[in-house]
């Protein structure tokens, strides 16, 4: 402080005292004093208000406008940070102590100090005030810092717990209390655990007082608390994020199941493979514990069961069914239809039930397999522990059951169609064989006279094969080289096709491929489609050549016999 300029505000109404003090300080070599002398308190306070620099105030307590400690109080009010030395004529220890306690740095009794003592008092007062001001500043900053920390700690949306070296919670903010669902007095002192830290965060499940759980992301950092190492664990509620992630993952798995079901439905022609593969897909792709498809008849009679999963002991199901001891859930779903969701196993379910949910995990979902009014049984799955099923999944499960039912329906229809086709083919074959072996000439003619059907007997009698004549009309020229005879038969055919008339025993003579003549007796009828429209003619011919010859022979013999006269008749004539 040597040669420092010290600016002193001297508030003193006594001229002699004021000069004396200035005189004393003039001889001091360590510092140069500059004075501002005010004779009243008001003038001193005015000067302090002018913001001019002042390093120290020398204050007489007895002034024209103020006296006693009230004078000090007023000056301190005007500026608390400038050190004040009291100058008074009253030598009182009590007053001195009170003045110091009210903020004065020193208390000097007039006439009892000299140049050295006042100079020392001024220097020390300035240093003490500086230390005091610094302390006040630090305390203030510390208080502000703590307030800011408190604000951040308390208003943080994340739960924050301070964990001590004994793994117990030392302090928890408001968000942490909400997160844990516990009051501060319960949480403080409870064992949280030593937080294992790495560079990343970790996920934990907070066990709340009401038995619910909250997923939280935990970040931990080392800190000092009350002078000891502690851990600050910041906990962020990520339940919604976790639920959304789980939801998306579940829906993706279900969509995969649906895609695979579609492929299975298209590729598996065997219905048993198809139903077994559906069960496998539910377990493998969605992660259900078990999947069953119970096939029943229209009236609930047991047909067969398919299953997949960890425990597929369904041995007693068929026997129980026959004894009418079906599981209640099976009866419910078969009778009422729809989707049945059981979050937990009902109390009335027996331990021996093949669908015992307790054995498989949490609960089950069942849906009746129904399509176009036909009931094919039901589809059932079990859920492992911790398995979450959302509303969409229940709806999609119902739709998946509908798809399975539709696939069973299509499989059944396809089987029926194939059976029917096979039966029709057999009947057609038998009919063809009967027609071929009947000895009757059969041909079918389209409206233009083209041959559509030409059977074996027609081939044998005419000598022309089916390949020779089908799809052509040239056969008429071959069979009836005589134009008049050909026109006659073709005219009859036209009549049949155009007017629907039929003829029986229309005898015509044909020329066979081998050149011999055969007599055919025709039965002609028109051929109609399912709407009754004539689409051609059907001709059934019987080879009556030998019969006609026999008739001709008989006629000739009869005529010859008529010409011969028997003896009795000759006598009668004579």
């Amino acid at each position, binding site marked *: 402080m040597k040669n420092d300029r010290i600016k002193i505000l001297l508030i003193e109404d006594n001229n002699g005292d004021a000069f004396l003090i200035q005189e004393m300080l003039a001889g001091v070599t360590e510092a140069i004093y500059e004075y501002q002398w005010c004779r009243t308190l008001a003038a001193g306070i005015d000067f302090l208000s002018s913001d001019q620099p002042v390093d120290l105030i020398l204050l007489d307590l007895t002034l024209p406008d103020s006296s006693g400690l009230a004078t000090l109080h007023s000056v301190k009010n005007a500026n608390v940070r400038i050190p004040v030395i009291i100058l008074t004529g009253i030598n009182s220890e009590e007053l001195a102590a009170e003045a110091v306690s009210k903020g004065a740095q020193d208390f000097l009794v007039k006439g009892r100090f000299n140049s050295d003592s006042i100079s020392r008092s001024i220097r020390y007062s300035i240093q003490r005030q500086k230390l005091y001001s610094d302390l006040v500043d630090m305390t203030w900053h510390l208080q502000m810092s703590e307030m800011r920390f408190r604000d951040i700690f308390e208003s943080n949306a994340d739960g924050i717990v301070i964990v001590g070296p004994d793994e117990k919670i030392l302090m928890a903010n408001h968000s942490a209390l909400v997160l844990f669902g516990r009051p501060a007095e319960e949480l403080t002192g409870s064992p949280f*655990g030593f937080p*294992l830290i790495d560079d990343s965060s970790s996920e*934990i*499940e907070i*066990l709340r007082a009401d038995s619910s759980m909250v997923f939280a992301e935990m970040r931990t950092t080392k800190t000092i608390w009350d002078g000891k190492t502690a851990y600050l664990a910041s906990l962020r509620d990520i339940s919604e994020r976790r639920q959304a992630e789980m939801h998306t993952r579940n829906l993706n798995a279900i969509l995969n199941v649906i895609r695979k079901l579609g492929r299975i439905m298209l590729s598996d022609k065997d219905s048993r493979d198809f139903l077994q593969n559906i069960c496998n897909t539910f377990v493998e792709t969605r992660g259900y514990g078990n999947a069953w498809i119970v096939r029943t008849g229209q009236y609930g009679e047991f047909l067969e069961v398919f299953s997949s999963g960890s425990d597929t002991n369904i041995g007693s199901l068929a026997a129980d069914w026959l004894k009418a001891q079906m599981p209640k859930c099976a009866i419910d779903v078969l009778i009422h239809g729809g989707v049945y969701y059981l979050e937990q196993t009902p109390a009335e379910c027996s331990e021996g039930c093949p669908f015992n949910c307790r054995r498989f995990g949490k609960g089950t979902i069942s849906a009746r397999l129904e399509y176009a009014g036909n009931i094919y049984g039901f589809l059932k799955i079990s859920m492992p522990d911790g398995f979450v099923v959302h509303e969409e999944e229940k709806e999609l499960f119902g739709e998946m059951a509908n798809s399975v039912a539709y696939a069973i329906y299509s499989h059944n229809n396809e089987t029926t169609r194939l059976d029917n086709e096979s039966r029709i083919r057999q009947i057609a074959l038998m009919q063809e064989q009967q027609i071929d072996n009947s000895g009757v000439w059969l041909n079918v003619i389209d409206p233009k006279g083209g041959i559509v059907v030409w059977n074996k007997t027609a081939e044998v009698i005419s000598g022309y094969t089916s390949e020779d004549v089908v799809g052509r009309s040239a056969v008429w020229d071959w069979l009836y080289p005589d134009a008049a005879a050909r026109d006659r038969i073709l005219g009859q055919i036209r009549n049949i096709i155009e007017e629907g008339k039929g003829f029986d025993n229309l005898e015509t003579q044909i020329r066979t491929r081998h050149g011999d003549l055969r007599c055919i007796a025709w039965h002609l009828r028109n051929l109609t489609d399912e709407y009754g429209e004539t689409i051609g003619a059907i001709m059934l011919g019987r080879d009556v050549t030998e019969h006609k010859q026999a008739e001709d022979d008989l006629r000739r013999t009869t005529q010859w016999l008529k010409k011969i006269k028997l003896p009795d008749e000759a006598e009668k004539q004579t």
Partner: protein
Amino acid sequence: MFNAEFELFVSGYSPKNRAVVSNLEEICHSPELEGCSLRIINVSKNPEMVSSRKLLAVPVLIMHKSGQERRMIGVLDDREVLIREIDRMKMFDL
């Protein structure tokens, strides 16, 4: 030989919890921890354990040794971190 009993409390067997269980099983079967036992408790199936053991969060690993217990929470699926912590406990005899 380091004789300690470990209890791992989990809630269900999610993929994350399965990773923790598998990490713990592997560590407990390592030669360094020969003589240690591991018990896994699912608090979903044993909800009474939450209050009786004053559990605030899971997964939490409790190590019992010489009548004292230490709880660990956090990155239990990290083998390195877990071994480092168990080693630290061994060094200070819990």
